[in-house]
């Protein structure tokens, strides 16, 4: 019988945070998220956790499970072991139990202008983009904004103004998009005090990403692009 040790905190009761243990039935193929639902439905309706799609695409159920940040929905209990310790994502304020305050996470994301800025008027039909040009953004567009990378990043932990791996990965997606016309404006911002050069290349974000994306690599590429733009005199600070 697997045991879940779940982080609990409710400011309403005024209690300190603590870990609560729950015994679950042994069900073949049961995921950690299904385990949490089992607790909610059968043992303890006061347990709070986010979830939605249960198929690894919405990013709601990102949490710290057995030594790693990951999605509860696609994690099999047997892969963790008989005792499953579950904590909320780190570096964000804990609101209740496994629910953290994601406002700073989304605020940082919004700062990089996460939308296409074409240089001219769009054509009447689609912008032409070759399969090779499309392939350049293949992996960056698969980010689901689950915040596993953000919760695992030591720089985020110490610098609340750091844009974070999720926002920087997204930024490369636009820098590398053949349809975007704001490359140097973007690079100027990304090279600022809280951007790519704050990254210490610790690789946590890459190791935890449930989509196997590479924010560390993306940040490395942005560093090189920003430096090259600086040396060639193309980097202009804009508003």
């Amino acid at each position, binding site marked *: 019988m697997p045991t879940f040790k779940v982080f609990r905190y409710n400011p*309403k009761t005024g209690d300190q945070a603590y870990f609560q243990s729950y015994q679950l039935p042994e069900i073949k193929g049961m995921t950690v998220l299904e385990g949490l639902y089992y607790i909610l439905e059968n043992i303890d309706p*006061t347990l709070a*956790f986010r979830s*939605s*799609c*249960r198929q690894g695409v919405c990013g709601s159920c990102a949490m710290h499970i057995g030594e790693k940040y990951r999605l509860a929905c696609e994690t099999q209990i047997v892969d963790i072991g008989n005792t499953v310790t579950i904590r909320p994502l780190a570096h964000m304020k804990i609101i209740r139990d496994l*629910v953290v305050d994601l406002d700073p996470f989304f605020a940082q994301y919004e700062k990089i202008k996460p939308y296409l800025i074409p240089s001219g008027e769009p054509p009447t039909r689609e912008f032409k*983009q070759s*399969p090779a040009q499309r392939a350049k953004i293949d992996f960056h567009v698969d980010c689901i904004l689950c915040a596993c990378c953000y919760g695992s990043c030591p720089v985020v932990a110490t610098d609340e103004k750091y844009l974070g791996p999720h926002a920087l990965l997204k930024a490369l997606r636009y820098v590398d998009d053949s349809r975007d016309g704001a490359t140097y404006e973007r690079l100027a911002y990304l090279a600022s005090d809280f951007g790519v050069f704050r990254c210490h290349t610790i690789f946590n974000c890459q190791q935890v990403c449930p989509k196997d994306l590479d924010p560390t690599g993306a940040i490395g590429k942005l560093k090189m692009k920003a430096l090259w733009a600086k040396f060639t005199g193309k980097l202009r600070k804009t508003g």
Partner: protein
Amino acid sequence: MFYDVIIVGGGLAGMRAAIAAHDAGAKVGLISKIHPVRSHSGAAQGGINAALANHPQGKDDTPERHAYDTIKGSDFLADQDAVEIMTSAAPGIIFEFEHWGCPFSRFEDGSIAQRPFGGAGFPRTCYGADRTGLYLLHTLFEQVVKRKIDVLYERFVTKLAVKGGRCAGVIVMNLHSGEFQAIGGNAVIFATGGSGRVYSVNTTNAHASTGLGVVIPYWAGVPLEDMEFIQFHPTGLDGSSILMTEGCRGEGGYLINNKGERFMKNYVSEKIMELAPRDITARAMQTEINEGRGFEDRYLHLDLRHLGAKKIMERLPGIREICLNFKSIDPIKDPIPVHPAMHYTMGGIECDKDGMTRVDGFYAAGECACVSVHGANRLGGNSLLDTVVFGARCGRHAADRVKKMSQTVDTDTLDSALKEEKERYQRLCSSSGKENPYTIKNELSQVMMDKFGIFRNETDMKKGLDEIKILKERFNHIRAIPDTGKFNYDFLWVTEIAGNIEAGLCIATGALARAESRGSHFRIDFSKRNDEQWLKHSLFTYAPDAPQLTYKAVTMGKYKPEERKY
């Protein structure tokens, strides 16, 4: 708090409506019980239809042909004027997405790639690998960010404030604070998505997709339409029912029974095979399983192996990832075990082509709405299109309408609705009942699967309807909800179960009454379509015991009903 236009739901329909209303000059508030990027639209995989004529075999495609395929696919229950609006708006709305940066897959010439989908005369489904919904969803969120539209996320709407046939706003529980709030608006648009979790033991839908989205307006006096039409997707992953996109078959995947046969040849022409519409394919699959040609009496094989590693990695990477994570199989080397799973609600909130309902100021768009463009059976690739075409129309219409009005806050109506909700919460928290609400939820989904599934008959449905009524009564005696303050998910889920029960009652009542087979509604005791008596939409009006059922005419056009042959 007051907005010109309040939008409830942050998926494709909701965000597209918000952008349209904002661009038309309205002050917009987008309310969602989850963050918009968590919406179930993001789980859509295969693609979005538009007659772009980009595919070499689709040069002759037109919006008219798209309209005909949609109407035929709907088994002639769709309103033809609405379908024509959708298919003619499709190319423009796809180009707009592309201009906003949506990462569609591409053909060699740089144009948007298209793939074949079930029931379509041409390959017209635009896609981004097998993550089309995710890309569209994120693209819309990016445009919401760009416009700095107010996004009130993790606000759980529990009630419409309606008085004298006019909507004054919504009551929400702000999960972040644990408090109820009234939010006033001159127009309210519901874009809350589908009700798949009514069938929660076997659905492709997210936990968040419950019946409450259609039931909140139903409780407030807005009729629901065509609720008996429930789409079963042919290929849900065995066990979890996670969607294996129709794109798998669009790319050339086979369905195989335990004799190793591509059995679809016994049901449709050899030209169509696995690309028959979903209702026909799902019935064929269930027949194979029922007649002993399934594996473990439960599933069939979706075989992609002959497509080769390169194509699978390039076009269906998400499918491979899900198979590896959830089933420990690799579709490059192994066939995928699949069975039909509840997928889509063709019915929903009755509304017109601009999303307007019978309650003044209240609109609906997306899967929760019934415009109706899908009739008795939706074609794959048309749901994403529906959400964005009608989301945009609805947002624009609502904004134009409220601009002509003075900003009036109906404080009395909002206050009394807020008071009712606070009292209801207190009642739930102090209940002395003993029933576990989640047991009721699970029993409901079992009844829906067993009695209102792919094959239906009068005896079972009568029994099923009685069982749902008993569950509704038992729900009056549930245990107390713990008042935990912030993020009271127990309150949220339990309230949603009440929505599932009401939506289930409508589905059951409509299905039992409709004595014919049309699209997804198949009755073994009335196996033929009956246009003379049943070429009409069902309408469900709330009454405490059971829904009141009436009917209205289907809007016909140039396409005359004919037998569906594929």
